[in-house]
């Protein structure tokens, strides 16, 4: 549910967790980012930074400039100032990623896990089975069939949680148990109902079945997409995965290595939740592609 009144929970002397609801839904997350945008605009003295997540905002504050009670009062008032969620619009870029599905690198990582940690079903086949799909071709069709919403950043520099915007494209999967000790950089995985691109060679738990040659963070800030920020994503961005063959993958990878790759980004749209809801009402969520 989405709460009428948010809960404000203390996290020591520097943090307050603002809980806006307790469900994973687009609407709850859209509310999170609408409230986060209002808090940022209000530039409340003493509020240091925000970590907006699926249904919560972690607020860090400086107790010498603002009290816990005043954070609750001021941020609570901003939440109440949002009348109907339907009237909200957020800036939303659309970023395209070339993707090689069922690639050799995630396969090699899977083989390594089976050899060293535990035997398990191969990730793409597991995804086909638990989501009642016909075969790997349908997995690719379903996964690349819609736009994804950047619901949250965090955990690792550059990492983002992507939520499918079309219910017909929702894939779910259990996480690795125990987790992987490493994941190929820029592998794409699904865990719970979320999708992620691994920014770097990191541990991980999502089922991995694809890889993009386009980086999502770059500490050297060489590529044009990283001139402003080390990390590509902002909350409210949308992502589209475009299936490519090995030749195209290698071409993009060469451009990245040369430092000339241009991420494909369109930045002229606002996301209207009213129009999104109207579109949702026209589709049959049980259909697959």
């Amino acid at each position: 549910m989405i709460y009428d009144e948010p809960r404000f929970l203390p996290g020591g002397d520097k943090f307050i967790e603002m809980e806006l609801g307790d469900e994973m839904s687009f609407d709850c997350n859209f509310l999170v980012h609408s409230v986060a945008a209002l808090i940022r605009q209000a530039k409340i003295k003493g509020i240091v930074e925000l970590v907006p997540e699926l249904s919560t905002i972690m607020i860090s504050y400086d107790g010498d400039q603002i009290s816990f009670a005043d954070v609750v009062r001021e941020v609570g008032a901003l939440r109440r100032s949002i009348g109907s969620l339907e009237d909200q619009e957020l800036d939303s870029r659309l970023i395209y990623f070339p993707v090689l599905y069922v690639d050799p690198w995630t396969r090699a990582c899977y083989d390594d896990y089976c050899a060293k940690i535990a035997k398990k079903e191969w990730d793409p086949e597991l995804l086909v089975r638990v989501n009642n799909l016909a075969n790997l071709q349908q997995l690719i069709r379903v996964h690349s069939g819609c736009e994804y919403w950047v619901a949250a950043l965090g955990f690792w520099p550059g990492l983002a949680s992507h939520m499918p915007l079309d219910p017909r494209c929702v894939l779910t999967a259990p996480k690795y148990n125990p987790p992987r000790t490493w994941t190929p950089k820029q592998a794409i995985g699904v865990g719970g109902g979320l999708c992620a691109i691994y920014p770097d060679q990191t541990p991980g738990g999502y089922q991995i079945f694809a890889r993009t040659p386009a980086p999502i963070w770059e500490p050297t800030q060489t590529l044009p997409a990283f001139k402003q920020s080390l990390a590509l994503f902002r909350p409210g961005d949308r992502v589209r995965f475009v299936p490519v063959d090995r030749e195209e993958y290698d071409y993009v990878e060469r451009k990245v290595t040369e430092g000339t790759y241009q991420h494909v980004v369109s930045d002229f749209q606002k996301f209207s939740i009213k129009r999104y809801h109207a579109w949702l009402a026209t589709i049959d969520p049980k259909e697959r592609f």
Partner: protein
Amino acid sequence: MISVIKPGLETSVQDWPGRIGYWEQGFPPSGPFDSWSFRLANVLVGNQPGEAGLECQFMGPTLRFERAAIIAVTGAEMNPTLDGAPLELWASHVVKAGQILALGPARKGARSYIAVAGGIDVPPVLGSRSTFHMAGIGGIEGHAIKAGQTLPVGESKSVPGRRVKPAARPTIGESRVWQIEAVRGPNDDWVDEAAHQRFVSVDWKLQARSNRTGYRLDGPEWTFTPRATNKRPEHGEHPSNVLDHGYPVGTVNLCGQTPIILVVDAPSTGGFINPYTVPSAAFWKLAQAKPNDIFKFNLVTVDQAHELRRAIDRLCTPASLE
């Protein structure tokens, strides 16, 4: 300029308060784990309290000063010597060009701080010189210092022969039992009363698998409320699972049955509950604890946590020197 002869164990450049403003992007604050000892080291050499210095962990480095400097060593006792002669902790000293500062294994405490007048002058990354080795940013090439590297030092204007008054220093004693403050929340309504009772009554043992990312604790099993055991499926299967959410620095993150205190290099988000949070004023104790030390938790309110922090802040000034 300082040459690294032996790096010690994961000795890194840190500044205070660290990398603030990038938590949403997944960059932790980093910075010195015991910022009380760190700030006093800087104050001793005439720096601003937050200027970049070295954090030494468990085994200190051996450094050659290529030009004269004013330095101070604070925090854990690592038997520092200058050209072989013992060097007093909590005091500022002249080092002549060519002299060698050597720190050994930590006898009391775990983390020692070396401040140099002028500070370690590496380029800031995202507003801070602090090393965050997992992303390879800050400090010297993004990682702990290595033998053969050189550390640039800023311009100095300082005086030797100053000392921190004993009453202004953190007490790093022989006892391996630590009284650690904790604030309830944010997710204290996910564990039951019996778990709350146990949290403050039992001895928690610090596991060896602990570092600047997280402190793992051994202790009794946790028990939960219906909020944890009867929840929407998207929260996950285990009672300690919750929808991915932001983590406070210092929080007691319950990962299955293992509590992990998330500290200065911790992840910013994840899918586990946080029943308690260790306030910033108790971080110096975490920093100076060693594996197998015992933690006893004492609950404090948010207001008390602010008061404890202010009390330490007031000590990290030149008024604490004699």
